[in-house]
């Protein structure tokens, strides 16, 4: 178990890993299973779709996820209305036996941007229904404050639109969220490289949620490890305290005692 300062606490539950991993888009269920192991994650996301018993992969994926022992974070991916998201959340709670829900209410088909108005309303309804809501939001301060107002104790702002791998597009907004909001903040979506995840952690974010960057890597298992290492490095750097950047160079080796410096020529 990690020391308390390195543990992640979400709705009263503690975790050693600060990486939440998605379970979609892998070329095989076996690859997904091995990536979960390599990532050292303790929380995985998953979804619900209409039954298709003809596709055997669904049952295998579900068995591997159960065997992983990870905490489940079901999503409402693809929902475009409050009603759809609320209904799917209830179906998830029954099927997965958890009150955790990654709430997605999508407002735009092109960039899969959350609908802020629907998101807040769905979060309010679900919180009143006893759910512990993990809202997938943008980096807008007021939206995230409204989500807290309706009971969200964890927020998941995007780094960039889902699946783009563009990293942290709006550092000003993200820094503002970190400075102003005293709840766990998870960067959800848009990250493409471990260096981007490390940067998010250096900024003080509490965790990172990934899927595409790992699942679509040339070697997803190795990339899962790379992200885990990057997140650990970034979080340790945040705890250690980064130096202030500055314009003027400053020597790291002491100047005093420098040989050949200001030497007088012997007479």
């Amino acid at each position, binding site marked *: 178990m990690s020391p308390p300062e390195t543990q992640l606490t979400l709705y009263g539950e503690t975790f050693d890993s600060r990486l939440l991993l*998605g*379970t979609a888009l892998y070329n095989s269920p076996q690859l997904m299973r091995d990536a979960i192991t390599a990532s050292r994650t303790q929380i995985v996301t998953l979804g619900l779709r209409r039954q298709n*018993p003809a596709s055997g992969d669904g049952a295998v994926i*579900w068995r591997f996820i159960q065997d992983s022992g990870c905490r489940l974070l*079901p999503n409402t991916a693809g929902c475009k209305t409050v009603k759809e998201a609320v209904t799917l959340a209830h179906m998830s709670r029954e*099927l997965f036996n958890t009150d955790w829900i990654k709430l997605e209410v999508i407002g735009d088909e092109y960039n899969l941007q959350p609908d802020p108005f629907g998101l807040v309303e769905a979060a309010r309804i679900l919180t009143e229904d006893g759910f512990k809501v993990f809202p997938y939001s943008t980096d807008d301060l007021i939206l995230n404050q409204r989500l807290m107002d309706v009971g969200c104790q964890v927020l998941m702002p995007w780094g960039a639109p889902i699946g783009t791998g563009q990293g942290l597009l709006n550092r000003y907004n993200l820094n503002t969220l970190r400075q102003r909001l005293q709840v766990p903040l998870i960067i959800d979506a848009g990250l493409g490289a471990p260096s981007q995840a490390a940067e998010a952690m250096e900024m003080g974010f509490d965790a990172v949620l990934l899927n595409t960057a790992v699942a679509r890597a040339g070697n997803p298992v190795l990339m899962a490890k790379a992200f885990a290492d990057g997140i650990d490095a970034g979080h340790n750097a945040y705890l250690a305290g980064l130096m202030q950047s500055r314009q003027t160079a400053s020597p790291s080796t002491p100047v005093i005692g420098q040989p050949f410096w200001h030497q007088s020529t012997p007479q």
Partner: protein
Amino acid sequence: MIQISLNGELQREDDNCTLADALVHWQTQGLIGKQYAVAINGEFIPRSLYGQKILHNADLVDVVQPIGGG
């Protein structure tokens, strides 16, 4: 007989068929698996109500299963 939509496909069921009866029927036919949750006309139906819920003509039934997700 009534005609309902199961995950977008038309199905015929007996009059006064309960959701519980229909789910057994669909499992026997291989249309659904073992792990599922149900909504009818966009409303979640808790498992405890399957035996009481009577299907009606033109009902839209969604039966969902776990899948990988991000």
